[in-house]
């Protein structure tokens, strides 16, 4: 296995980079979208909550692989999309994987955020209202800071899940860690070494994420957030 790393480290390094880009990109997309959806859901207006609940239900009840194929292969079916300015982006496997993973992460994060927003003590919101905070200021200064602390453990989990999900991007020809490994295996026929080597890389990344998040979580506690 050491030989494997020594021989193919330039390719593997590229793969790690692609995986990390995809991971960070889709987490960012997912978190921003989830933040907007959860804030809209928090208003309790039916014309917000119904569509958001439907979106979350659809994404959470279907396999990620299906969503990925739906975006990457499915988009080509419509000439409207093929002729639009979006096509140069939508035919890129990286962009498609980013959209699929981002949307997927958004749905799962929305659920977590929704629950955490509801857990903010009512008295704090009432106090802020009494002090004349605008609804946006309440969201920005009272609800969100508390929400972040509350969701941190679940969000760590989400990060690991998305890291593992990035491996699926190899099925739409993206050369992430898994894609590179599959390519190298096809070339060398050394299946077991290749799979174990990439497994080791995934475990290292998972451990890093969990470890870093634990440290950040401790810091949250120390500054009394």
């Amino acid at each position, binding site marked *: 296995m050491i030989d494997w790393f020594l021989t193919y480290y330039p390719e593997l390094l590229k793969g790690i980079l692609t995986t990390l880009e995809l991971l960070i990109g889709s987490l960012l997309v997912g978190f921003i979208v989830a933040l907007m959806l959860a804030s809209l859901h928090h208003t309790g207006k039916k014309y917000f909550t119904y569509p958001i609940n439907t979106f979350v239900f*659809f994404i959470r*009840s*279907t*396999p*990620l*692989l*299906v*969503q990925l*194929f*739906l975006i990457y*292969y*499915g*988009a*080509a*079916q*419509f000439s409207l999309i093929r002729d639009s300015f979006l096509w140069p982006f939508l035919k890129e496997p990286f962009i498609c994987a980013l959209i699929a993973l981002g949307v997927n992460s958004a749905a799962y994060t929305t659920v977590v955020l929704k629950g955490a927003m509801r857990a903010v003590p009512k008295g704090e919101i009432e106090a802020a209202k009494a002090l004349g905070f605008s609804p946006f200021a309440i969201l920005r200064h009272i609800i969100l800071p508390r929400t972040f602390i509350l969701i941190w453990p679940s969000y760590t989990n989400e990060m*690991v899940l998305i*890291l*593992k*999900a*990035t*491996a*699926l991007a*190899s*099925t739409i020809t993206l050369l992430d860690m*898994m894609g590179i490994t599959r390519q190298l295996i096809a070339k060398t026929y050394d*299946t*077991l070494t290749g*799979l*174990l080597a*990439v*497994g080791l890389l*995934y*475990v290292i990344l*998972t*451990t890093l994420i969990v470890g870093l998040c634990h440290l950040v979580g401790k810091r949250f506690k120390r500054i009394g957030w």
Partner: protein
Amino acid sequence: MLQGYLPQLLEGALLTLQLASGALVAGLLLTLIGAFLLDSRYKILSYTTFGFTTLIRGLPELLVLFTVYFGGEIVLYHVFQHPIEVSNYWAGVLALGIIFGAYGAQVFQQALHSIPHGQTEAAHALGLNTWQCYCLIILPQAWRHALPSLGNLTLILLKDTALVSLIGLTDLMSRAQAAASQTQKPFTFYFAVAIIYLVLTSIVEILLHQADRRANRHIRKVQ
């Protein structure tokens, strides 16, 4: 709209369901075995099991599937010294079962710990042996605590079955792939697959809700 491909999709869905039920049975067995090993008196057993389950939880599902299917063939070749073909169906069942078991074992261990020790003592005082105590007293109660998490794992397992199309099984997903390439309508067919999965997960969710109600039927409700 599906241009006559619906029967094929449903046939694929049947295979998907078969595979999912097989993997669920394998997964529950591994959950039980794993939970007992995690609580084993012998430190080496409990540490190894903990290490193994944590390792599996850190690996992408796709990688576990490939390792079981492609790696299994190689390992079997080295053990028996002649090529043995691994069925992709059983590789799929085993891989999904292992993933379920790795999460399930840790969940079930927590559930076992939530049963007060007095229950075991009472069972022994009544003359039940260890085996009877586990089967009649501990497991039915632990089951209630573990059910919500195991239910979530079941839903994840059902969705992960889409991956087995990548090791050449003619499940729902690969039927849709074939239909999509023949008709040049990928969106239609992948959307149909999404809807079928949506229906399947909804049915499982309803069943899980019923099972949860049944497992909690003796718990007093708040007046």
